[in-house]
C-alpha cells in the first residue's frame, strides 16, 4: 500500500479487529495473506519470528496459569504480522505527510517529525545492534542475557546522543514549532481495493459469529 493514510487506517482497524477476538484475528490473518505480500514481509522482517516465539512463550505460561493464553498468542501474532506489514512498506517522510494531513502544519508537523526521527532512530538502532553483536562475538563474549545489558546501554546511549545532537542542530537552525509542508499522496486502485477489503474484514470481525451464521441460514 503506497498511501500512508490508507495503510495507517487499515492497520489501526485490523489491529483492533484482531485484538477483539479469535474470529477477528482469523479474518485479519486472511486479509494479511491476500493483501500484504506475506513472503516479502517475512523476508524483510525476519525479526517477527523471534517476536512471535516470545509471545508464544508468554501465551503458554498464561495458558498454564490462568487460561486464555492460546487466544492471546494467536491475536497478538496477527497484530505483530500487521505491524510488520506496516513497517516493511515504510517510505521515508510518509509519517510527516500523514500527520500534517491529519493535524496541520503546526501540531501535525511536530508529531510527524517526531515519528520520522523515531523511525530513523529505529533503523540506526537495528544496524547498531548488529554491529554490537558482531563486535561481541569477535571479542569472545557469548551472546546471552549477560550481554544484553551492555548492548542495551550502548543502544540507549547512542540514541540519546543522536537525539541530543539533532535537538541542538534544530535549535541552532532556529526551529521552534511547526513548519511549512504540503503533503501529496498517491492512491493506486489496488490500495483502495485492499482498504475496502480491510473495512469488510473489520465489519465481519465485529459481527458476532452466531449472528453471521443466522444471517447466512
Amino acid at each position, binding site marked *: 500500500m503506497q498511501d500512508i493514510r490508507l495503510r495507517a487506517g487499515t492497520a489501526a482497524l485490523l489491529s483492533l479487529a484482531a485484538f477483539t477476538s479469535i474470529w477477528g484475528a482469523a479474518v485479519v490473518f486472511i486479509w494479511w495473506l491476500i493483501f500484504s505480500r506475506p513472503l516479502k514481509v517475512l523476508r524483510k522482517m525476519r525479526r517477527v519470528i523471534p517476536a512471535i516465539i516470545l509471545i508464544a512463550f508468554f501465551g503458554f505460561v498464561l495458558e498454564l496459569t490462568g487460561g486464555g493464553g492460546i487466544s492471546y498468542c494467536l491475536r497478538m501474532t496477527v497484530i505483530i504480522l500487521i505491524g510488520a506489514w506496516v513497517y516493511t512498506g515504510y517510505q521515508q517522510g510518509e509519517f510527516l505527510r500523514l500527520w500534517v494531513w491529519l493535524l496541520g502544519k503546526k501540531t501535525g508537523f511536530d508529531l510527524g517529525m517526531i515519528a520520522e526521527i523515531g523511525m530513523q532512530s529505529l533503523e540506526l538502532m537495528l544496524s*547498531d545492534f548488529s554491529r554490537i553483536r558482531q563486535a561481541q562475538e569477535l571479542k569472545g563474549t557469548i551472546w546471552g542475557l549477560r550481554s544484553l545489558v*551492555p548492548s542495551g*546501554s*550502548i543502544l540507549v546511549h547512542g540514541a540519546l546522543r543522536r537525539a541530543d545532537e539533532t535537538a541542538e542542530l534544530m535549535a541552532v537552525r532556529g526551529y521552534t514549532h511547526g513548519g511549512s509542508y504540503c503533503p501529496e499522496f498517491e492512491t493506486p486502485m489496488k490500495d483502495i481495493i485492499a482498504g475496502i477489503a480491510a473495512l469488510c474484514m473489520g465489519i465481519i470481525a465485529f459481527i458476532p459469529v452466531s449472528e453471521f451464521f443466522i444471517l447466512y441460514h
Partner: protein
Amino acid sequence: MEVPVLKVSLAGIRAVRGGWSLSAQGIFEEGIHLISGDVGSGKSTLAHLMAGFFPPVSGTVEREGIASVMIVFQFPEFHVTGPDLERECKEWGVDPGTVLAAAGLTGRERANPLDLSRGELKRLILACVLAKDYDLLILDEPFSSLDCAEKERLCMTLSGRKRGITIIFTHEKAHFPRVDRIWEIQGGVLYDRGRLPSALGHWDHAPVIVKSLIARGKVPANISQADLLEAACRT
C-alpha cells in the same frame, strides 16, 4: 616448528548494497596493507566482508593459516561490554594498568566507558586490541576521532607490528604508518597498487605531499612522517 603461512585471498568477490556494488580481487599476505578510498567508496563494506560478517554475492574470501581475527569498527562504542574501564580491559583479556597507561587513561579505572569522549574511547579500544596479537587485524577508519598526536602515536604502534596481516581502511590524508602494500578503491573496484615505494607512483589517493615529492624526483621509501621528512630533506 613450522610457522604457518598467513594469507587472505579475495577470489573475484562482489558485494552489492542497494544499487551499488564493489568488486575485489587480490591476495593479502603478512604485513601492513593500506586500503584508501573516498568516503562512501565501500571501504567499510569490504572490511566487514573480509572479517566474515557476510558472504559476497559471488566469489570467495579464503583464509589460510588464520586462527584469530579482529576488526576495530569506526565507532568504538560498539565494542564496549564492561561497566568500567578496568572491567573493559579485563574483558579484552589485557592488563588494565598497562593498557590504560597506553591509552592515557590512568586513574580513570572506575569510569564508565560510555562516558568517555569518542576520541578517548577510540584510544582505549585501540590500545586493548593492539595489546593482543591477532593473525588478521582489520582497522576500519582507525584515525577518525583522534587528534594529530594520537594519530602519530597509533602510526608508530602499527609500524611496529611484526606479525600477522594488518589491513587499514582509511581516507586519512596526513598520518600513516610504514606500510607494505597500498590498495585503493575507485569506482566500485579494489585496485592493488603494489609494494612500497613503487606503489606511490600509481596511488591516486596519495596525499599532496607525496605527489609533490614524487614530482620533484624525491620518492619517499615509505609514507610514515619520518619517511616523508627524510625524502623532503634529501638533497
